[in-house]
């Protein structure tokens, strides 16, 4: 599995005076098994970008290749792509609609055309993967807590057995523990189920803690593509884009300025603790 964007443009109102580019000249490749973070201010093109990954939108110029095949080809099996790349939208719990959690999770695989039995089997597996208690399976989704609802919604996408899972701000509106739980779940899906993850986030701390690689969008362009360490070196530029760097990275900058001999490319608490202890003792 791989996703390749080759000079992708997406323009709205292309033939009119109001032409606006939501994506301009985007090129990158995501390999099987990666854990990628996607950051950018509101309106930078993140959502447009991820909708190109599963064919909900198509480039107005350039190509998107999934597994080597151009998704804009006339005979491309787009339905298959939608199963391969699962998209979890913002506030996915707003899309729960069946009478029970279990029926809701079955909806995706049934819609894929699977037999009822197979769909149910997948639903069970998915619900177990997201760690929902069995007592919730036959409850109405609306009786669940915020964090549980979100798990149920993620299970609905997992039941389609995607190879890539794209999550658009999966932690928005959750309390700190809820945020940790959802992100640990995503990490588990990556580590144990070998699902490729694309995580769209507004939290620099979360991105620094979980992902291996960060893509940064600004004004419809891809401006950085690198490890958290590489990307968060650009503190000033990121701030100008309406973003930030993790608070612990700011702390390391301040310590360095105050005369402590510490590196400034630290992005996690554990590493910061090590470095500061080393420097002081």
């Amino acid at each position: 599995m791989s996703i390749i964007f080759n000079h992708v443009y997406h323009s709205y109102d292309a033939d009119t005076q109001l032409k606006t580019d939501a994506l301009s000249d985007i090129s990158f490749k995501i390999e099987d098994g990666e854990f990628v973070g996607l950051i950018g201010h509101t309106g930078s093109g993140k959502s447009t970008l991820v909708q190109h990954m599963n064919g909900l939108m198509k480039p107005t110029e350039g190509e998107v290749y999934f597994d080597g095949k151009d998704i804009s080809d006339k005979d491309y099996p787009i339905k298959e792509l939608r199963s391969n790349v699962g998209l979890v939208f913002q506030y996915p719990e707003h899309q729960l609609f069946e009478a029970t959690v279990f029926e809701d999770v079955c909806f995706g695989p049934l819609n894929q055309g699977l037999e009822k039995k197979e769909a149910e089997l997948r639903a069970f597996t998915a619900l177990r993967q997201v760690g929902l208690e069995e007592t919730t399976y036959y409850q109405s989704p609306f009786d669940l807590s915020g964090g549980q609802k979100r798990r149920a919604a993620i299970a609905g996408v997992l039941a389609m057995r995607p190879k890539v899972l794209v999550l658009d701000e999966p932690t928005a509106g959750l309390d700190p523990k809820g945020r940790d739980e959802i992100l640990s779940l995503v990490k588990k899906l990556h580590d144990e189920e070998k699902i490729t993850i694309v995580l769209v986030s507004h939290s620099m701390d979360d991105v620094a803690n979980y992902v291996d690689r960060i893509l940064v969008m600004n004004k419809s362009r891809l401006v950085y593509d690198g490890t958290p360490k590489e990307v968060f070196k650009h503190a000033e530029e990121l701030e100008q884009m309406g973003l930030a760097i993790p608070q612990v990275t700011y702390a390391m900058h301040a310590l360095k300025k105050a005369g402590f001999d510490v590196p400034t490319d630290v992005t996690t608490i554990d590493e910061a603790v090590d470095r500061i202890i080393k420097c002081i003792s």
Partner: protein
Amino acid sequence: MSLIKTDNLTFEYIRRDDEGNVEGITRAVDDVNLDIERGQFIAILGHNGSGKSTLAKHLNAILYPTEGTVWIDGMKTSDEANTWNIRQTAGMVFQNPDNQIIGQVVEEDVGFGPENLGVPTKEILERVEESLKTVGMWEYRKHSPNKLSGGQKQRVSIAGVIAMHPKCIVMDEPTAMLDPSGRYEVIRAARALNDVEKMTIILITHYMEEVIYADKVFVMDSGRVVMHGSPRDIFSQVDALRELRLDVPQVTLLAHELKKKGLDIPDGILTIDELVNALKRSR
């Protein structure tokens, strides 16, 4: 006299199944006693479902107590005759800016509140100008709200509330849907309102670093206030907060971890400057 006072505030609601049979009773707010002075910056923390929003809705008479009493500027919220005055005294800002903006043009949206209160046109214009300037959105007065960023929209929502000249603003997770600069803009606007205009602010949030400048922090769990104190008091209790599904700012956590490793650092470090100074002393 305090601006907001609650006396044994309790709120219960009845849960029903699909057939309408009573399944049980949930106590969303349980015996809460608050006493908030004019001009304070108050933060309320608590996990999802802890009762924060239900409490907030009592502060401008969207909900009434099942037991106990709420007074806003001396007015009892349970007395229906007070409802309009209370809503004018305590304005609310909600999580999603898109649900709060109705005007086609920014200034029109901000003018809606005072117009609805029957304020004369000339004064509406003055209030719109003053409110938009307070939140730093005056230059966008002729813009369409749907072309603004999340942080800008949320500041327009705040301006819409300020234009009604409330004595207090209750903000229920105003930054939950915003990017980092949007969060910063909104929190800066809230602090400026408090500092400069002496507006009383009640901020409900899940972002710990937003509350470090509050005068007082209340932490809720199962409808009760389980901790209260200055941000430093509260964030000194890292483990207790974690048990309540909460957290501390990253720099506080860093200081806490360094202390556990044996460095001589005080509890409840809130800012990077404090951390730097503490480390300088321990070197």
